[in-house]
């Protein structure tokens, strides 16, 4: 029998302020006279969502901000009531929605453990028997009798996490918690989560923006956007789908003119008019197959003489990690850019980037002094999509890095003292043993 059953779940919120007393009276009056009261605009946080979760399943819920993930958890844990639809849950639920919800700042750590245990429905005796385990896991022995308000934020989370995962419950609901604490504790939390899932076979609902973690912990993932379930399936497939979605969004907002002028340095002598990517057939593109060549087309206007210009084109990630730069030092030593309009073409050959979204930066400097005349980041963006030799499922930027490189493998078995090593595959460095 399913642990959690959700049928045609819809949750609406009314937008805007809670109406004042006068509006309520007016609405009441309207209702009494049999008319419909004028309502505020309705926002559907969840729109006809249905799924069911079997015992022992570990289900991740992912999606962009405001997709309705937390609303869904709130409805399942009973905190909020659905506008329509039905939720059936079997067994006790330990809600971890935003860790530390039940913590009181004035109470000590130990007192908070009692308080939260009671909130989660445990008797004093049960809590006492778990006390040592909780304190032990939280690594807070020294501070357990200090008021919670004096804890550092990391300590708060440690206590909350060990509390919520030590207390027994059939269903565990987790909202954005694993990305807390120092690295060592994150590791510990992660292990605890894995053991909860693997050994104790608890049913877990996990909401996180850390897609990597979701992919690793969960067997199944729901992808939610704008209150609807877009995908429901094995975690790897759904996570890849989500990566693609976010990449598109980043590009979309970039193309919609969100290119920031914040990272622009200009002497005013040069104005950038257009940057576009062009493929071998001369068509404007935004997507490039991995390892394909393409051309960056930069148009700019010069207002004052620029002798011996040096151009630079670089690639960086959407979070401004510089990956590579190419400069034209020495190429245009005999040129002087007189006022006027120019178009610069730069062909990228066999770009060794992994699939993902990347941005370009561009600069012009004076050849003699290397003094920058113009510099700007995020002038254009492009997406590398999987080529013939790589698929998104196996290689992802940000997970496997950004760069693709070539190499050869060979494996040598070194079992047995007398036997010659058995070579598997060809080594370019050694003659094969005949």
């Amino acid at each position: 029998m399913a642990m959690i059953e959700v049928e045609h779940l819809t949750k609406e919120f009314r937008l805007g302020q809670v109406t004042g007393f006068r509006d309520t009276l007016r609405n009441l009056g309207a209702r009494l006279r049999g008319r419909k009261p004028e309502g505020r605009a309705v926002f559907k946080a969840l729109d006809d969502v249905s799924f069911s979760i079997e015992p022992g399943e570990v289900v991740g819920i992912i999606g962009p901000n405001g997709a309705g993930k937390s609303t869904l958890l709130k409805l399942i844990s009973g905190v909020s009531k659905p506008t329509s639809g039905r939720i059936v849950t079997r067994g006790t639920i330990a809600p971890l929605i935003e860790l530390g919800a039940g913590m009181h700042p004035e109470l000590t750590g130990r007192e908070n453990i009692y308080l939260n245990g009671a909130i989660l429905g445990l008797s004093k005796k049960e809590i006492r028997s778990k006390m040592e385990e909780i304190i032990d896991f939280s690594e807070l022995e020294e501070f357990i009798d200090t008021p919670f308000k004096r804890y550092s934020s990391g300590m708060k989370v440690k206590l909350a996490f060990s509390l919520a995962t030590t207390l027994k419950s059939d269903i565990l609901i987790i909202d954005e918690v694993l990305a807390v604490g120092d690295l060592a504790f994150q590791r510990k939390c992660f292990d605890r989560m894995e053991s909860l899932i693997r050994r104790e076979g608890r049913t877990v609902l996990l909401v996180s923006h850390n897609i990597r973690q979701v992919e690793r912990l969960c067997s199944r993932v729901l992808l939610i956007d704008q209150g609807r379930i877009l995908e429901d399936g094995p975690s790897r497939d759904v996570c890849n789908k989500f990566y693609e979605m976010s990449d598109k969004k980043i590009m979309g907002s970039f193309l919609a003119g969100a290119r920031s002028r914040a990272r622009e340095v200009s002497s005013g002598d040069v104005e950038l008019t257009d940057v576009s990517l062009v493929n071998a057939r001369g068509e404007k593109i935004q997507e490039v197959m991995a390892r394909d060549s393409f051309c960056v087309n930069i148009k700019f206007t010069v207002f004052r003489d620029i002798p011996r210009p040096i151009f630079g084109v670089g690639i960086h990630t959407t979070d401004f990690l510089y990956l590579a730069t190419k400069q034209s030092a020495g190429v245009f030593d005999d040129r002087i850019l007189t006022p006027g309009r120019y178009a610069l073409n730069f062909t990228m050959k066999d770009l060794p980037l992994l699939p993902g979204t990347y941005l370009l930066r561009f600069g012009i400097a004076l050849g003699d002094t290397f003094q920058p005349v113009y510099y700007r980041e995020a002038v254009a963006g492009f997406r590398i999509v999987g080529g013939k030799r790589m698929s998104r499922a196996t290689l992802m930027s940000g997970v496997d890095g950004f760069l693709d490189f070539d190499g050869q493998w060979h494996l040598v078995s070194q079992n047995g003292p007398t036997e010659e090593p058995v070579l598997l595959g060809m080594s370019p460095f050694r003659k094969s043993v005949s």
Partner: protein
Amino acid sequence: MITVVKELWTFRQLMATLAWKNITVRYKQAYLGIGIAVLKPVLLMVIFTLVRSFVGIDSGRVPYPILTFAALMPWVFFQEATSESVNSVVANAALIRKIYFPREVFPLTAVVTKLVELGINFVILAGLMLWYRMPPSPLAVWVPAIFAYTILVSLTVSLVGAAMNVYYRDVGQLLPVGLNLLMYASPVIYPLSLVEKKLLMERAAGAWSEIAYRLYTINPLAGIIDAFQRVMLKGEPPDFAVLWPGVAATCVLLPVSYRIFKKAEAYFADVV
């Protein structure tokens, strides 16, 4: 009714812990500790006694200070419990947004918390009784029933009040004002016997006297205070003629109040 009690019984541990939390938190950084709780009734008693020396209130054979203190005990309990529990839902917004359990736990806990302070006031009352050499009467067995009734009265006001306070914070602001007014309509400063004398014997309101007296006793606090004074100080059983209008009103209004609370409860997490 039975299901309600049953559900609350399952959450008794939670309520006990929450009440313990309320008390610990309230007095954690207060130097005087829980002793501060007795300050209000004791101070009011002193003030009333001083005022009485100017205006003169007939307190019968019971000394006025102890009589008014015995009135202040249920009154202050009622007043504090009610204002505390009206604000309890909003005060626990963080919990309400995140964890589910029946929401009436909050108003109930707020009331239960006040029982502790009431207990301390009993110590003061015992001291006063010793001072005035008033032996306790076996009729004191009525006390738990009287306070159980007071709790129900407080919940009648505070369940609906707490629910409304989630939507309109004015409720929490206006309630203390209303309760202060109610004090003058309750036999706190003056004994009920005075009202009886004025209305029933001297018929101060003429033909309306009977009705005025009934209206006065619809306020459950009139019956509660009178009953408490009787069993503790006068060694008389509670006067049911005074009690029943209030009891009837409570019996009618408490279910209504509870129903409203439960209906509003579903949206607390969205609105609060």
